[in-house]
């Protein structure tokens, strides 16, 4: 059935879909896999599971997939570990991929480790970079200790090398001329282990952060209502978006959708202004692609000064009002 691919340790991507649309992170991973495959001759295979999702296949091929493994069944309409994990395990045993990538979404983080355990192979969570050596070894870079450190993880022996990646870490690409094929696979479903009673949809406020040219963000150092009002005013003048780091979310100053960094949004603005953010790597991975990073922080030893372009050491309550006034003056003239 998929025997013609067994001789190569291909790169597989689990495609998560919702209401007939592939998840953005799945497309990002296909693009990354395409890049890693390069001229090696390795194929990029998308594993598409769902009910009535065939129409997603061309999108995946345009995103860079050579092959789409299509597994359809009414019972697979929504993600559930008790069906998805054994079905993927089955496929892995037949197709013997070299590596398999999952988006680090709630479903992906649930599924990837389970598949890895069943297959007896390694799984590396939340990679912020992936590299493929000539011998086919996947170098997986992950943050450790809250991002104070980075580790490169490898899975030397077992295959596939399974990795999860947060949304936004890689960029999606588009290959309109790319050719690929769809391989239908009849999934063998095991008995259900639980009953899915209901999926309750909650409409999420779309975050303004990813598309904003200017982003202003506050961290643990901004710890008063007045402080956040200042940042809000500054954001307004700059016509930007307001965000924050993990402590800002934990302290209730921002919404979940406003959190920037690992496990939050990854942003690429032209200008990023970080106020009262110490800048551990977990935060910085989310902003490292900003064109210019400006820091206002009272702690001159804050790590963020090593990851930014311009620094003002000082109390934001003194600095931001001056900045606001200067910007207002500029706008008037």
């Amino acid at each position, binding site marked *: 059935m998929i025997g013609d691919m067994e001789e190569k340790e291909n790169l597989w991507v689990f495609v998560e879909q*919702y209401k007939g649309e592939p998840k953005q992170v799945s497309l990002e991973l296909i693009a990354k896999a395409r890049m890693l495959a390069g001229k090696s001759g390795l194929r990029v295979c998308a594993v598409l599971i769902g009910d009535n999702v065939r129409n997603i296949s061309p999108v995946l091929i345009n995103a860079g997939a050579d092959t789409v493994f299509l597994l359809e069944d009414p019972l697979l309409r*929504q993600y559930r*570990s008790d069906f998805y*994990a054994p079905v993927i395990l089955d496929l892995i045993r037949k197709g013997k991929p070299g590596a398999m990538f999952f988006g680090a*979404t*709630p479903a992906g983080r*649930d599924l*990837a*480790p*389970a598949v890895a*355990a069943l297959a*007896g*192979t*390694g*799984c590396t*969570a939340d990679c912020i970079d992936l590299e493929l050596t000539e011998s086919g070894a996947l170098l997986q870079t992950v943050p*450790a200790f809250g991002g*104070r*450190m*980075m*580790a490169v*993880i490898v*899975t*030397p*022996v077992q295959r596939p090398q399974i990795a999860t990646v947060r949304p936004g870490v890689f960029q999606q690409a588009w290959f309109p001329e790319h050719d690929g094929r769809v391989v239908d696979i009849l999934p063998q479903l095991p008995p259900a*282990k*639980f*009953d*899915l*009673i209901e*999926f*309750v*949809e*909650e409409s*999420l406020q779309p975050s303004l952060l990813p598309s904003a040219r*200017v982003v202003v963000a506050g961290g643990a150092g901004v710890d008063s209502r007045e402080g956040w009002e200042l940042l809000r005013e500054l954001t307004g003048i*700059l016509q930007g978006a307001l965000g924050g780091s993990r402590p800002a979310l934990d302290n209730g100053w921002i919404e979940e959708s406003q959190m920037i960094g690992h496990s939050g949004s990854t942003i690429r603005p*032209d*200008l990023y202004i970080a106020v009262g953010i110490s800048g551990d790597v977990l935060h910085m991975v989310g902003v*490292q692609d900003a*064109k*210019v*990073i*400006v*820091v206002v922080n009272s702690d*001159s030893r804050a790590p963020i*000064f*090593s*990851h930014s*372009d*311009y*620094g003002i*050491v*000082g109390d934001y309550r*003194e*600095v931001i009002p001056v*900045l606001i006034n*200067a*910007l207002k003056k*500029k706008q008037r003239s």
Partner: protein
Amino acid sequence: MQVAVCVKMVPAPEQWSQIAFRDDGSLQREGIELIINPVDRNALEEALKIRQALGGTVTVFSMGPPSCLERLREALAMGADRAFLLSDRNFAGADTLATSKVLAAGIRKEMPGFDLVLCGSASIDSGTAQVGPQLAAHLGVAHLTDAFSISVGEQNCFQVRTVASHGYFITKLRKPALISVTRQLNKPRIPTLFDIVASCNKEIIILSSADLNIPKSESGLEGSPTKVRELFFPPARRLARILEGSIEDRVEELLRQPGVAGVLK
């Protein structure tokens, strides 16, 4: 209801900045205080609530070096009935797969008739969120992750709400099963003085690889499919130019910088 709770001891985050490299490249973490991984306390709290409602026992399992023993006492002080520390030189250097194998062996040996395994969704030091699903795979039971509400329904079924991308799932889960939980699930109790005194009379049992009958090749570094190839402090990507002068001067200078001025046009 027989509930097993898995907890991990992690370095206290306030002291992470003190973690350093030794000359041989390994991590120097002696003297760093260990704490129970915060969300694992939520798992334990939920287990205690289930015991309160239905009776039964709560047993804590943790894999780690002997220095974790004291912290395990804290789990007993919160109200767990028994605690097992799975500790052996052979277990050192384990990745999530090797860790979950050891935990599975501990649970199978000491609690073969378990109804439910609870664990925190992720640890704060590595944050992989993988041990829960992998432990379930080794135990051969169903799993749900990121639960923010658990209620026990009729016929020993759990009604569980779990986080999903566009909302949440409500699932009916039959026992035995594993659920990983979030911080939102509950508020972990603070041990009372009575609990603290009582905990000092409870026993913590250490189980070695021999007790668990796990060969060296299947645990710890050797039994881990993933290896750390390199560990490094992230390089300074950009070194900020620190602006000098009065606040007004510094702001003016900032606004003159090409990368900034260009955006503000």
